[in-house]
C-alpha cells in the first residue's frame, strides 16, 4: 500500500500519480484553481503535483484531492513503486529526542522552594491559561446542515424555484462543496450564486466559503408531466471534514401536474399563507428571477386554472 501511518508524530505520506491527477482534472473540466481551493493549497502546488516535482505528499491532502476529483484515494496514487517515501522536504522534522535523565552521581539534599515562589508559579500558570483561552479560543465545532426548499408541484414547462439553505454553525468561513443533481428532463434556467464547475451530467456544483448560513438557489422547469414524482438529490462536503458527505435534507421530489408551484395545497388559489411563504422563502434571494408578479396576480384573483394547450395559467377574476 502507498500510505503509512508514521509513529511518533511523523506525518503520513503517499506517493501520487501526477499525470493521472491532471487527466482526471481535465476530463472533468476542473481548473487548477478549483483543486487548489478544495485542498487549500496554491495553484503552484497543484501544478508541481501534476508535474511530479513533489510526487510524495501528505495523505490528508491526497484525500482532499481525491474528494475534489470525485475518485477514491487509490485512483490517484502511484502504484509503480510500492514503497512509501517520506519526502524530507515536506515532512516537518519532528524531533524525537529521547529523554535521558541525568543519573545523579551522588545524593544531594533537595531544597524546598519557598511558598511565595509556588504561589507565584500557580498564578503565572493560571494567567497564562486565561491568556491562552482569551487569544486562542478552542476551534468551533462545525455542524453543517443543508435543507432544500422545493415546491410540492408545478405545471409542465413552468419555471419553479428551488433553494438550498446551508448552515455551518460557525462564524468562521467554511469552505464547502455543494452538489445538486437535477432529475432527467429538468432544464436549468438560472441559478445564484453562479456554479463553480462545468456540468456534464445535469448536475450543479458550487465551491463556496460559507459563514454561518448561505442560500444556493436555482430555477428549473420540467417539460413533461408524469404521475411519478420528479426526484432531486444533493450532497454537501466540508473541507475541514474530508471524506464526510452530508445529504441535502428537506423535500426532494416534485409532482408535475396542473397546479402553480406557489399553490402549496393544490386547491386552485394562492392564499395569504401561500403568498407569504413565497416572500418568506424566496424574496431575499437576490438575483433569482422568480415571476413574483404572476404569483401576486393569482393571489389577487379568485383563483386560477391551467390551460395545458397554451401552457399558461389563466387567472380567475
Amino acid at each position, binding site marked *: 500500500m502507498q500510505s503509512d501511518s508514521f509513529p511518533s508524530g511523523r506525518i503520513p505520506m503517499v506517493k501520487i500519480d501526477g499525470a493521472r491527477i491532471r487527466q482526471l482534472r481535465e476530463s472533468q473540466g476542473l481548473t487548477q484553481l478549483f483543486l487548489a481551493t478544495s485542498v487549500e493549497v496554491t495553484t503552484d502546488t497543484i501544478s508541481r503535483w501534476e508535474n511530479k516535482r513533489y510526487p510524495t505528499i501528505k495523505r490528508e491532502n491526497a484525500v482532499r484531492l481525491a474528494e475534489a476529483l470525485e475518485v477514491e484515494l487509490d485512483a490517484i496514487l502511484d502504484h509503480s513503486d510500492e514503497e512509501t517515501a517520506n519526502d524530507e522536504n515536506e515532512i516537518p522534522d519532528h524531533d524525537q529526542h529521547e529523554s535521558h535523565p541525568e543519573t545523579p552521581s551522588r545524593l544531594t539534599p533537595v531544597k524546598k522552594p519557598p511558598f511565595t515562589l509556588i504561589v507565584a508559579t500557580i498564578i503565572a500558570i493560571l494567567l497564562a491559561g486565561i491568556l491562552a483561552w482569551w487569544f486562542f479560543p478552542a476551534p468551533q465545532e462545525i455542524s453543517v446542515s443543508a435543507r432544500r426548499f422545493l415546491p410540492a408541484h408545478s405545471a409542465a414547462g413552468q419555471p419553479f424555484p428551488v433553494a438550498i439553505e446551508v448552515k455551518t454553525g460557525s462564524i468562521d468561513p467554511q469552505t464547502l462543496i455543494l452538489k445538486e443533481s437535477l432529475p432527467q428532463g429538468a432544464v436549468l434556467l438560472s441559478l445564484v450564486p453562479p456554479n463553480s464547475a462545468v456540468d456534464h451530467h445535469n448536475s450543479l456544483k458550487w465551491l463556496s466559503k460559507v459563514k454561518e448560513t448561505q442560500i444556493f438557489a436555482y430555477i428549473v422547469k420540467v417539460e413533461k408531466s408524469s404521475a411519478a414524482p420528479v426526484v432531486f438529490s444533493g450532497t454537501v462536503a466540508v473541507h475541514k471534514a474530508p471524506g464526510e458527505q452530508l445529504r441535502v435534507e428537506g423535500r426532494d421530489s416534485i409532482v408535475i401536474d396542473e397546479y402553480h408551484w406557489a399553490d402549496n395545497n393544490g386547491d386552485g388559489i394562492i392564499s*395569504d*399563507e401561500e*403568498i*407569504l*411563504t413565497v*416572500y*418568506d422563502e424566496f*424574496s*431575499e434571494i437576490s438575483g433569482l428571477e422568480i415571476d413574483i408578479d404572476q404569483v*401576486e396576480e393569482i*393571489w*389577487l384573483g379568485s383563483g386560477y386554472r391551467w390551460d395545458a394547450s397554451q401552457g399558461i395559467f389563466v387567472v380567475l377574476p
Partner: protein
Amino acid sequence: MKGIPMMTNVSMLKKWICTAAVFVVFVFLSGKPADAADLVSGSYTSFSGNSIVLSIDIQSPPPASLIIEQYLPPGTEIVGSEPKLKKYNIKKGEAKWLLKDVRPGKMTVKLQLAGKIAKGDVRALLRCMDPATGKFVEKNVTP
C-alpha cells in the same frame, strides 16, 4: 447545642438556593424572545366616522412581508388609502394590503371612507410568517 448552628446553616443554604433559583428564572424569562403572537400587533387610533386609522407594531426581526386585511360594513365605499390598497372587495367590505420590505417599529395604515360608519363595525387581521420559526402568524385587531 451542636444541632442549632447546623440547622441555621441548612436554612441559610435553602434560602440561598431559593434566591438563586428565582434569579435564574428571572434571567431566563427576561432573555426569552418575544412570542410569535407578539411579532406583530395592532390597535385602532380611529375607528368610527369616515376615517379609519390602524397603528401596527412590528418586532425585530421583522417578517419578510405582511398582509393587513381590514373588514368594513359590506358596500362601504373607500375614497382614499395610505399606503395604497392592493385589493378591495366592496361587496364584502374586505380591503387588503400586501406590504413588502417590512421594517421593525410602528407603522400606520389609513382609510378614508365616503360615508360614516358606526363604532364596532370594523376589525382587522394581520398575517405574516414568523422569521424565527417559519410559522404562519395571524393576529386579530379590534377597536
